[in-house]
C-alpha cells in the first residue's frame, strides 16, 4: 500500500520508499524511515499534495512523491 491509498486522519507506518537511492535520500532526511509513524492531516483539492504529520513535523508531499512511499496501517 502507498500513501495515496490512505484516507485522511489515519495513522500508518513507513515500510520503505520505491524510486531509487536519490528519492530514498531525500525522503530519509524528512523522517521517512522504516518504522516511523505518519498521519495524513489533509490534502489539497484538485489532486493537490498531501500534508502529513511525520514524527511531529508537518511535511508536504506531492502526489507523485506520495505514491512512492510504501506504508502499512498501524494494527
Amino acid at each position, binding site marked *: 500500500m502507498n500513501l495515496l491509498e490512505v484516507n485522511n486522519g489515519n495513522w500508518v507506518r513507513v515500510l520503505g520508499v520505491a524510486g531509487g537511492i536519490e528519492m530514498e*535520500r531525500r525522503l530519509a532526511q524528512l523522517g521517512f*524511515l522504516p518504522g516511523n509513524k505518519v498521519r495524513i492531516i489533509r490534502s*489539497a483539492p484538485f489532486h493537490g*499534495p498531501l500534508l502529513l504529520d511525520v514524527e511531529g513535523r508537518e511535511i508536504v508531499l506531492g502526489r507523485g512523491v506520495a505514491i512512492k512511499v510504501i506504508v502499512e496501517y498501524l494494527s
Partner: protein
Amino acid sequence: MRFALIGQPNCGKSTLFNQVAGYRAETGNFAGTTVTFTETKVRVLGDVVELVDLPGTYTLLATNPAERVVLDYLIEKPVDAIINVVDATHLVQGLTLTLELMELGRPIVLVINMMDEAKRQGLKLDGEALSQLLGIPVMPMIATRGQGIREAFAQTWHMARKSTIPTPPAYRDEIEQAILALKSEIDKTEFPVSRRAIGIKLLEGDPTLTDQVGRKVPAIKNLVQTQWDSLCHQSSVQAVWLIASERQKLARELTEKVTTQEKMRLTLRDRLDDYLLHPFWGYVFLLAILALFFYGVYGFGSWLEAPLLNFFNNLDATVLNALHSNGLLAQVISGAIQGISGGLAIVLPYLLPFLIGLGFLEDIGYLTRIAFLMDSLMHRIGLHGKAIVPFILGYGCNVPAIMSTRIMEDKRDRFLSAALSTMIPCAARLAVIFGLVAFYVGPWAALGIYLYNIFVIALTGKIITHFLPEDSPGLILEMPVYRLPTLKTVTAKAWFRIREFIFEAWPVLIIGSIVLAVMNFYSVTDYINTALQPFNWLLGLPKQVGTPLVFGIFRKELSMIMLAQAFGTTNYAAVMTTQQMIVFTVFVVFYIPCFATMISIRNELGSKAMWAITGLTVLVATLAALLVRVVFLIV
C-alpha cells in the same frame, strides 16, 4: 578563528546571523560552485571571529545544490568550531543533524533555539542533561529577541580555543565494522574533518566525496560496494537508511530522556490552517490576502506619488525657466532632476510598502501555504509547488528568485522555474506598472497587467513543458509553523532591500537620465530610435521609446524614468495614449531580464541558459505586447 553556523532549514539560523551581523552580511562565491554562503566578522571576547552562515540543511546528505554547499564547505575549509542551531520544538529531527555534525571531529556547540515556542507548546527541556549525554555544551536561545546569543558565542569561543573534539556517536556493530574496513584507505587522504566522517559519507554514497577520494585511492569504490553488499545482506536495507535510522534512534532516545511534554492547549495559531488551507476557504483567503496586499501597495504609493511628482515637475519647470535656455547645462540639470524624481516619486512610494508586506508574508510562514494550495495548478504549467518560492520572491527582485531555484533538486525544474520567474514583474517593474498604468490609467488596468502576466507565464510554461516534459516526482517540502514576525526583523529585511535600491539602482537611474539628456542634445538617440523603428511600428509605440527600452536592460525602472527625459515631460498622459502605455508596460514586464538577473542566471545555470532565457523573454514580450495591441484594435 572561523565559526560555521549550521542548522536545519527554518531553525532560526538566519535570524541569529542577522542579529549578530546586523544585515551587514557580504556574500561570497564558493570555489567552483555558484552557491553562495554568507560571511561576516563578529567580535567575540575581544577576538575578531569570521562567522559563516551556511544554507539550511536537514542532513549532510546534500540532496540539492543549496545543501551541497554545506558539506563542500566543511570538507574543504577548516572551521574552528561549529555552532549547531536546533529548533527546540523539533528536537528529534534537529539532533539527527547534531549527531552527524559530531562525527566531523570539530569543536561544536549545540544551540537550542526557539525556547519561547517550546514553552508555548508545553515542552520542557533539560539542557544540562542533554549536555551531559552528548558531551558537548548546550545553550538555550531565543534568537528573535536576541536572548542567549552572547553566551552561545562566548561558549563557542572557549570550545574553539581548547579545541575540544566531541566523541562521535557509536552505531551498531555492522556499521562500525564497515567504517573500520574503509579506514586504512581513507587514511591516505587529507581532509579537515575526521576520517570517520569521511568513511560514513562514503557509505552513505555521497557522489562528490566518492569521486574526490577515488582520485587518490582508486580502490575505494569497490571497497565501498563490498561494504554496501554486506550491510544490505545483514539488515536488508540500504546503508543510507541504516545509518539514518541509527541516528534517528539515538536522537529519539536522547529526546525522550531530556524532554517532558505537558498537556498543551490548542490556540488559534494551531487551528489557523483549518481555515487557511481549507479546500474552499483557503483559496478565498489567498485571493483576499493578495488583493489586500495589492491595494495596500497601490493606496500607499499613489497617495505619495501625486504630490511628489507635482513638486518635481514644478521644480523642473522653475529651473528651466530660471536658466532661460535649452542649452546642454539646462538639459543635464533637467535630466538629473528627472532621475531623482523617478526614484523618489515613482519607485520608492511603491517599493516601501511592497517590501514590508512581502517580508511579513515570508516571515509569518504563509509562502509555504501558498505552495501547498497552488501545487496542483503549478503542475499544469509543468512545475510543482516548490517553484512558487522563486515566483513569489521574483515579485521582489528576480535575482534572489533565480538563486532560490537552488532548493529544487531537478535540473530541468531549475531551468524552467528560472525562465518563468524572470518574467515575474519585480519591484522595479512594479514601479512601471504602478507609476505609469495604475497612476494614469487606473488600478484596475494595473491589476489586469498582473493577471495577464500570470496568464502569459502559465501559457509559456505549458508550451515549454511540451518540449521539456516534466519528469520530476514533485513536491517535497516542510510546512513551517506560523510565527509572528517581529517588527525588527521585517523592517530590517525591508531596509536591506531598499538600501540596495537607494545606493545601487538610484545613482544608475540619475546617471542614466543625464546620459540620455546628453544623447538627446547631440541627437544620438535618433539613431537608436530609428534602428528600433520597425519594432515600435509593430507595437504601435511612439518613436522615442526606443532608447529608454535599451537602457531598461540595465535597470527596468530606467525604461520608464527615461521616458520622461525622452519626451521632455513627466506628464505621460500628454504624450502617450492609454493603449500605448499598456502595450509599453506589457513589453517592459516581459522583455530581457535586467542585467543583474542575466548574470545571476549565468552563475546559476550557465551561459547557454542565460541566452536561451533572454531570447525567450524577447519573443514572449513581443508576442504578449502584440496581442494586447490587437485586442485594443478589435475593441
